C-alpha cells in the first residue's frame, strides 16, 4: 500500500516490535479477514460447517474448487485466506492422520490434527527466510464419538469453539451466532443457523436482501452417531437453502 508508514519492525519476520508485536504475522491475517466466509457450529449431535466460495469471474467453474476438504473420514477442514496455503496445510494434516492410523490403529482426534497444523503455522512465524501462512483453518469432526470444532490461524494459536466464523463479515456472523446458538440443535439446524447468520451479515453489509447461491456454497456435517464427516451435494444444499426462506427459527425437520 502506498503511503504506508513502515517502522522497520515489519521487514523481517522474526523481529519483535518494541511493544511486543510481530507485524508480519498480523499482516498474514489480513487475507483471512478479507477471505471467503467459513462458519462452523458444534452441537451435541455433531458439527456443521458452511463455506462460501465466490469467484472473481463468472467463467470460473467454482464446482471444481473445494472449500471443505476432508482430512480423514471423520474430520474435515475449511479455510479463509489464501487457498494454496490452506491446501499445503491440509495435505500435511492428511498424511498425519494416516500416519496416526498406521502407528496406533486409531483415528487421530480433531484437536491433535489441529495442533499439528498449528505447529507448522507457528514454525513459519519463527524461522528465517519464510513467510507466515495467510490462512486460518476451521477444523471440525468427531473425536472418538465427541463432536469437536477448532480454529487455528497464522500465528499457530488454536482454540476450541462452540460456533465461530472466519473471513468476510466474521464480526457480524459471530454476533448472530452468539445470540442464536444452542447446543441442543440438530446438525441440520446448526447449518441453517450458520446460513442465516451469513445471509443476515451479507444483507446488512450490502443493505439489500441477499440470495445465497447453492452452487457457491459447501455444507458438511460430522455426526456423533456415525463418526463420519459427510459433505452435502449441491441438490442437498439447495433443499437446505429452501428451508431458510421458510424462515421459522425453530424447525423440526429431520432427514
Amino acid at each position: 500500500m502506498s503511503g504506508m508508514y513502515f517502522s522497520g519492525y515489519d521487514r523481517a519476520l522474526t523481529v519483535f516490535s518494541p511493544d511486543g508485536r510481530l507485524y508480519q504475522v498480523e499482516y498474514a491475517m489480513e487475507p483471512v479477514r478479507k477471505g471467503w466466509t467459513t462458519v462452523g457450529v458444534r452441537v451435541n449431535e455433531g458439527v456443521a460447517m458452511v463455506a462460501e466460495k465466490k469467484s472473481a469471474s463468472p467463467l470460473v467453474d467454482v464446482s471444481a474448487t473445494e472449500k471443505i476438504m476432508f482430512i480423514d473420514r471423520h474430520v474435515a477442514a475449511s479455510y479463509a485466506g489464501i487457498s494454496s496455503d490452506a491446501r499445503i496445510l491440509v495435505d500435511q494434516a492428511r498424511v498425519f492422520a494416516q500416519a496416526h492410523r498406521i502407528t496406533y490403529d486409531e483415528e487421530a482426534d480433531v484437536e491433535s490434527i489441529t495442533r499439528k497444523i498449528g505447529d507448522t503455522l507457528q514454525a513459519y512465524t519463527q524461522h528465517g527466510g519464510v513467510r507466515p501462512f495467510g490462512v486460518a483453518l476451521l477444523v471440525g469432526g468427531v473425536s472418538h464419538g465427541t463432536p469437536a470444532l477448532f480454529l487455528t490461524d497464522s500465528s499457530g494459536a488454536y482454540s476450541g469453539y462452540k460456533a465461530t466464523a472466519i473471513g468476510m463479515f466474521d464480526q457480524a456472523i459471530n454476533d448472530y451466532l452468539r445470540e442464536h446458538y444452542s447446543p441442543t440443535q440438530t446438525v441440520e439446524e446448526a447449518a441453517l443457523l450458520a446460513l442465516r447468520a451469513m445471509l443476515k451479515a451479507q444483507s446488512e453489509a450490502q443493505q439489500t436482501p441477499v440470495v445465497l447461491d447453492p452452487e457457491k456454497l459447501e455444507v458438511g456435517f460430522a455426526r456423533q452417531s456415525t463418526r463420519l464427516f459427510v459433505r452435502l451435494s449441491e441438490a442437498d444444499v439447495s433443499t437446505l437453502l429452501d428451508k431458510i426462506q421458510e424462515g421459522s427459527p425453530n424447525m423440526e425437520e429431520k432427514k
Partner: protein
Amino acid sequence: MTTVVGIKTQGGVVLASDKRASKGFFIASKEAQKIFKIDEFTASAIAGQVSDAEYLVHLVQAQRRLIELERGYKPSVFETTRLIANSAYSGLRNYAPFLAEFIVAGIDTEPRLYSTDVSGAISPETFVSNGSGSPIAYGVLESTYKDTMDIKQVEAVAREAVKAAMQRDPGSGDGLEVLVITAGGSR
C-alpha cells in the same frame, strides 16, 4: 502355514481362509484373521509372516485413503495390488523382505483378482491359492472349478478347497472364513 483361496467369476469374487496361526509345530491361535477388508469392494487374504502381512495391509489402507483424498476417487483393485507389490519389492531390494503373500480381490469396473508375493510380482488370476495348504487346495480347484460357474457355485468351491487343505495340511485348520464381494458390497 495357512490356506487361502480366491476365485473370480462374472458376478463377483470370493476369498476363503482357514483360521490357524502357527509357531513352528505349535498352534499359536485358532482364531487368526487372514482376510482383511480394504474397503467395501476390496479385500486381501494374507499368508506368511502375520506381522509383515498386517503391516502392509495397514500401509496400503492409509496410502489408498491419501490417494483418494488427493485425487478425488478411489484406487482400483490393480492399483491397490501395485501399492502392496511396490512395498514388497522395495523390501526385497533393501535386504529386508516382507515375508508374506497376498491375494487381492475386489470389484471396480468389474470383478478383479490378483496375487502378489515377496518379490513384488503381480499376477492376475481367475482362481488362486496361497500358503502351505495351497497344493491341496489347488487339487480341489483344478478338478472342480469351471468358468461357467456363478458366484454361489464359486463360493462352494472355495469352501471345499480350504476344507480339503485343513484335512491334510498340518499348517491349516481351526475353521473357515469366507468373504464374498459382489456389486452390492461384501459380506
